């Protein structure tokens, strides 16, 4: 049997330890670059949480990461590695954008749900395809999702450059959406609580993201199909023995994963850009993998990890701004180190922690055994 760690160690101490190590290594690099690492940390934290607008941007980025992180996490529960969040989000944006371009002039109460539905539907299709291929044709989902990312990028570029572009314009972006398709900002609401998020694009999508967290939690742990998805993820033969058709659950999990990733576009396209632009998915789909890994595929963990990455994005750009020696590439290095320690090397400290926590707990039965002998 695998040594189980107490929950607070598994979900709290271990990720914190990994994070601390990532920052330690980052600090060494900052010193090598000839800057003061403490000052860098101060700038980073101030840049991410120091004032209202910083909070706004941090939460805006976090919203993206919650969606893509949830998408990856949900697929993890079915034992699937969805690397296609990027493409699903990109295509989701097309769904939201087409709805917004078509109905943008209408009332927001009608248009916004349509746009959200469009994003979910298009994302679902882009998740369904690899799910179906995996279930019916045995094409590995890792390969197909990566390939569909490129298909999505090619399709979007084609549409932006040839179809959706404003005629005679040099810029490959769609026309601006009508006012009906603007996701309401959260500034007015937050002002009531004395927080001013300034010009940041923080919008109602954050609420949608948090609702999705609750829904994912309820689906995975409180619903029958969610249970079946988890059984398939744990063991396919066991699932089959219990009368579950694994293929159907694979398709279901991938489709829902696509929906979640697609909804990211609501935040970015309807909340921030208000038009379709090239590359708005900006790598958030890929970072979602790290978010899901760090968050241990649990919605609550995903929210925390998303907040961390949101802070790194916002604080990092602030850092690059105020410390020219630390370029934007350095910010990527910091993010990379966090991913490395939290994802790839997540088990580095596990034997050590197991040694501390599991032996102590097992000491009691061992003593009984000795007494019996």
């Amino acid at each position: 049997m695998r040594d189980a760690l107490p929950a607070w160690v598994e979900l709290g101490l271990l990720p914190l330890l990994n994070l601390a190590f990532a920052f330690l290594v980052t600090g060494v690099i900052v010193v090598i670059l000839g800057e003061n690492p403490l000052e860098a940390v101060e700038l980073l934290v101030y840049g991410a949480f120091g004032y209202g607008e910083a909070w706004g941007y941090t939460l805006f980025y976090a919203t993206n990461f919650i969606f893509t992180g949830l998408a990856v996490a949900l697929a993890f529960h079915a034992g699937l590695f969805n690397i296609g969040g990027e493409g699903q989000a990109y295509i989701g944006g097309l769904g939201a954008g087409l709805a917004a371009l078509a109905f943008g002039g209408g009332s927001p109460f009608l248009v916004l749900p349509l746009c959200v539905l469009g994003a979910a539907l298009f994302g679902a299709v882009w998740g369904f395809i690899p799910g179906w291929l995996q279930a019916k044709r045995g094409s590995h989902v890792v390969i197909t999702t990566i390939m569909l990312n490129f298909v999505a990028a090619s399709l979007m570029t084609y549409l932006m450059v040839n179809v959706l572009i404003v005629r005679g314009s040099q810029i490959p972006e769609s026309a601006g959406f009508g006012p009906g398709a603007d996701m309401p900002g959260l500034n007015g609401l937050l002002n009531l609580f004395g927080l001013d998020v300034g010009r940041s694009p923080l919008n109602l999508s954050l609420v949608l993201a948090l609702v999705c967290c609750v829904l994912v939690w309820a689906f995975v742990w409180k619903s029958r199909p969610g249970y079946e998805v988890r059984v398939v993820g744990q063991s396919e033969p066991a699932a089959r023995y219990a009368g579950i058709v694994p293929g159907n659950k694979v398709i279901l999990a991938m489709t829902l994963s696509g929906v979640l990733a697609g909804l990211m576009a609501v935040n970015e396209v309807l909340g921030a850009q208000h038009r379709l632009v090239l590359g708005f998915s900006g790598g958030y789909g890929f970072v979602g993998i790290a978010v899901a890994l760090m968050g241990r595929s649990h919605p609550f963990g995903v929210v925390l990890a998303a907040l961390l990455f949101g802070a790194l994005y916002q604080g990092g750009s602030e850092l690059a701004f105020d410390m020219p020696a630390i370029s934007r590439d350095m910010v990527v290095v910091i993010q990379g180190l966090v991913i490395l320690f939290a994802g790839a090397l997540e088990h580095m400290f596990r034997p050590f922690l197991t040694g501390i926590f599991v032996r102590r707990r097992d000491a009691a039965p061992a003593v009984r055994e000795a007494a019996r002998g």
Partner: protein
Amino acid sequence: MKTILALSLAGTLLGTTALAQEDFQPAVIFDMGGKMDKSFNEAAFNGAERFKEETGIDYLEFEITNEAQREQAMERMVRKGADIVVVVGFQNATPVETIAKANPDVKFTIIDAVVDLPNVQSVTFKEEEGSYLVGMAAAMASKTDKVGFVGGMDIPLIRNFLHGYEQGVKATKPDMQVISNFAGTTPAAWSDPARGAELAISQFDRGADVVYAAAGATGLGVLQAAADKGELAIGVDSNQNYLYPGHILTSMVKKVDEAVYNAFKTAQDGTWEAGAESLGLAEKGVDYAVDENNADLITPEIKQKLDEAKQEIIDGKIAVEDYYSTQK
């Protein structure tokens, strides 16, 4: 935080040679390719550096990494007291419009796109004119019946390069075929030299012997492939002739450095003017590059023909069509 600001401010003041200029604060924002792309953004960087060397005035800078940062970066520059913000790259058009409207006292110069506001100067280049000339050069230097073109991301701007190039080739040798490929459909297409080399080699294998690269850092792979294969390539944006002497026929230079330098300089001395300017051959905004590295390749005969065509374009006797007018 305040001490940091004060320190950096002090640093700026120390670097300033003339005390009278200490109030002037220029800023530049680079696009996603990164300021060290040996091509478009780097040209802008060189222009800003030149201004710094000449005047001793340091500038604020930022490199965009994602779409949501564009407005944020411009807003930050304004908040830091920038008098002029030079924004590089066509994808910044909409954010510049928003921020310039909100800050009518700050001057903005945008490069490669047009924004029509009283405090925005738009600088675009007639890439088609420069590309026309290098197209002629390619057709004359080619010993086969095909020449190639490798573009970066497939966007209207790069299609404009191709459009001008094709016209130049056809004007010289009507039967000549232009093989064209784009490196990709994501921004990664600007920074993938391996892909550039692969595309160039396939074009050489298909019978082209001169390939024009308009692909940012991806183009570096095209140039290298030409050197490896013993064929010819044409560089872009910056003068890249020096990279592989003897294998780079010429470079289509786009004077982005001049544009950035001029924006800073005119904003400083008060002659900066809003409005749109399109820099072609006549304004020396684009040109083909001849130096000691390609003097043997551009024969006197080729040079004479190119200079004739250049004059005719300037005089309006040859009309080079741009890609945008072909969009229906």
